[in-house]
């Protein structure tokens, strides 16, 4: 498993072998330590659904799910993710290639225009639904809400929770409707 081990073996060089499971398929890759997950997906695995909008965690277009949590894949060094499970927008369709309900809802609501932020919006929304179910509050959640209970997602909650995903085409109102459709 290369230079980086859970027991803390020293990395000798600037590359390591890393195993990632992406959309259910394990990949073992010899990677430059500088390579972030986003570039692994786009350059090494040909999964270009995750987009590079800013490369600095400022737009959300690269959002993917790592071990079930939504993250900015542009800021995650792939070497740190050895053994992790990654889901991208390409991995949300079911086995028969049918769109995920959120993908369907985005189509139904015309919740995008240029489409460049769309995979990130969808992956982020998948994460939002799980976080709300797990009782994670947001900036707009009533502080009196009991901890640990699922948080009901109204439009204000959806907007706040999706605010890490910028859309320059201004599809926001339709995106909120699309997320509301699958709740």
């Amino acid at each position: 498993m290369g230079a980086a081990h859970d027991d803390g073996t020293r990395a000798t060089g600037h590359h390591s072998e890393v195993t990632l499971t992406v959309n259910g398929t394990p990949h073992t890759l010899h990677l430059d330590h500088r390579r972030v997950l986003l570039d692994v997906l786009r350059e090494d695995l040909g999964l270009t659904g995750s987009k590079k909008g800013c490369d600095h965690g400022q737009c959300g277009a690269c959002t993917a799910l790592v071990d079930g949590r939504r993250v900015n894949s542009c800021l995650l060094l792939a070497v740190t993710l050895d053994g992790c499970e990654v889901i991208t927008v390409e991995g949300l369709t079911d086995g028969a290639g049918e769109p995920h309900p959120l993908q369907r809802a985005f189509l139904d609501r015309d919740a995008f225009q240029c489409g460049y932020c769309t995979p990130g919006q969808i992956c982020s929304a998948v994460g939002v639904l799980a976080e709300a179910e797990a009782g994670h509050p947001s900036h707009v959640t009533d502080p009196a809400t009991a901890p640990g209970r699922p948080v009901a997602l109204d439009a204000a909650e959806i907007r706040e929770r999706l605010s890490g995903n910028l859309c320059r085409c201004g599809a926001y109102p339709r995106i909120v409707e699309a997320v509301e459709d699958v709740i």
Partner: protein
Amino acid sequence: MTGTGSALGVPAERREGRQKVTGGARYAAEHPLPGRVHAWPVPAGVARGRVTAVHTEAALDLPGALAVLTHDNAPRITEPDDPTLAVLQTPGVPHRGWPVALVVARTPEEARAAAEAVRVEYAVEEHDVRLTADHPEAYEPEKANAGFPARREWGDPDGAFASAPVRVDVSYHVPPLHNHPMEPHTSTAHWDGDRLVVYTSSQGGTAVRAVLTALFELPEDRVTVVADHVGGGFGSKGTPRPDVVLAVMAARETGRPVTVALPRRHLPSVVGHRAPTLHRLRLAADTGGRLTALTHEVVTHTSRIKEFVEQAAVPARVMYATPASRTLHRAVRLDVPSPSWMRAPGESPGMYALESAMDELAGALGMDPVDLRVLNEPEREPDSGKPFSSRHLTECLREGARRFGWDRRDPRPRARGEGPLLLGTGVAAATYPVLVGPSRAEARALPDGSFVVRVNATDIGTGARTVLAQVAADALGVPLERVRSEIGDSDLPSAPLAGGSSGTASWGWSVHRACTELADQLGSRTGPLPDEGITAHADTAGLADADSPYARHAFGAHFAEVAVDTVTGEVRVRRMLGVFAAGRILNARTARSQFIGGMTMGLGMALTEGSTMDAAFGDFTEADLASYHVPAHADVPAIEAHWIDEEDAHLNPMGSKGIGEIGNVGSAAAIGNAVHHATGVRFRELPLTPDKVLAGLARPVTSGRGG
């Protein structure tokens, strides 16, 4: 005029939608090409001067580095019409951020690291980047952007103003704004023998091909430009930008496919921006509210290498009846990045200022601002004297007022509150010209009963594939699902860009013509079609660009409600509603998205977006998406967009006007007017961020009386 009408106007789903939501749609950096490498530009670190040395050894020693292009060794290109494309040709540095080198390496990481290792020495000169209304070097250009005369004048505006009983004399300031499409400007260039194939993020591939053939002295048939999916543009990809020139140079130099994906932080200085505009508006009216004079004077900046004058005073030539008017533009050449098109150039900042001033005039008159606008409706276009092909501004205002509940509004400023919040509502009008250009198209009938239309249109998010199939199905009189459209490739029939809200009209016209011709051929034919089908061609040159005896514009009305927090000065929009009269709406679904998108960008202009030209260093301080605040989800409430059915026989065969920009025009003014209504304070400098608003709230409340 049209065919069956069955396909036009229906809310057809985007044809590329499924690809976009599943991650399958490929953008300019995403086409698999064996051996593809990556390039990273090195931006100039001074605001004005000359490169005296570029030290590339350290960069070239790094692993993966393949080449460093500088003005010393980069391929020479024919001098471009657009000086911003003349990259790596001379040692001159016209502004901070100008590309002074390009590093090519195997991977993006290696390219970035090598770019960081390039050391550049400069002979630095004093710079001036500070725009002021009385800048000593301000001049009156011959033309403003888009060919409009810089100055128009009729009547005696100064005399009429001086003698008017009601006057408003106010100044507004719109800061530099950045387009920031979500996909940064990206090009991948690939030499296949002596053929050049370019995948680029552009609003118009035909123009990119024309520029590349000129710059690199190539015959047209050896250049293919593909712009299959484009991650937004908003004007900043309307013409080729340096990324495509750099990519072609690097591919030629290295013999490999090269991708130049501009780093987000490079965009503000490289791809154009909306120039800051300083506005002075003088409105004079009689006591009944009829305008007697309208003066709109604009000062803006342009760069040392390119004259681009934001045509912000132009909408005042269209909007209101007045016996005396002066509209003029002045520009200052500064050591700033070259400004360029941004969604609704001219109209967007110009209508912010004009519609804010109209609101101030309504306050000065004690008149309802909807009524004031209706009262000053012109019978003909004020500047040209031409009749309007259609103008339904009054209907938009009235319909919007009805839907918004305007009649329940207490006109007094600062009359509504909720605890520490002040609430207010505002209205503004919108206008955008109808633009259309000549295009070619081809329509083919196949033996299986299906049809293909081919045109080098570009889908920057408007849904061009879908709406062109609708136009074709309508003209052919066949079901929509039997028509396929091919776009986004310069080997297709040539077409103008997706810009100026002209794309659908221009492409659609030629598609309509080709399909009409094809339908005629089919009608006069018996027996089965040959295997390759039969094809009809169209070219609307001389037709689409013919002078019209009519003044052709879309119009609209915006209504907004805001809450202003008196503790923090934070302004949030509670609701927005727009009503538009833009000819025939060809796809209700995608049209709504475009209107809402334009309104959202106006919200950003009003409240969150602003760029600062750093006088000391000559760069835009807000260079990334963390500091340049494009509105986020939480900023954008429910937005309603409506339209009225507008029949206009003087446009094009579809009867459509453009819809990509009008949603943006006037929306910032509606929000600003709502902030005045909420607070009683008139803010005249955008964006309305807490620093400005809090300071304003500390000032005494104005009565709303101007003049």
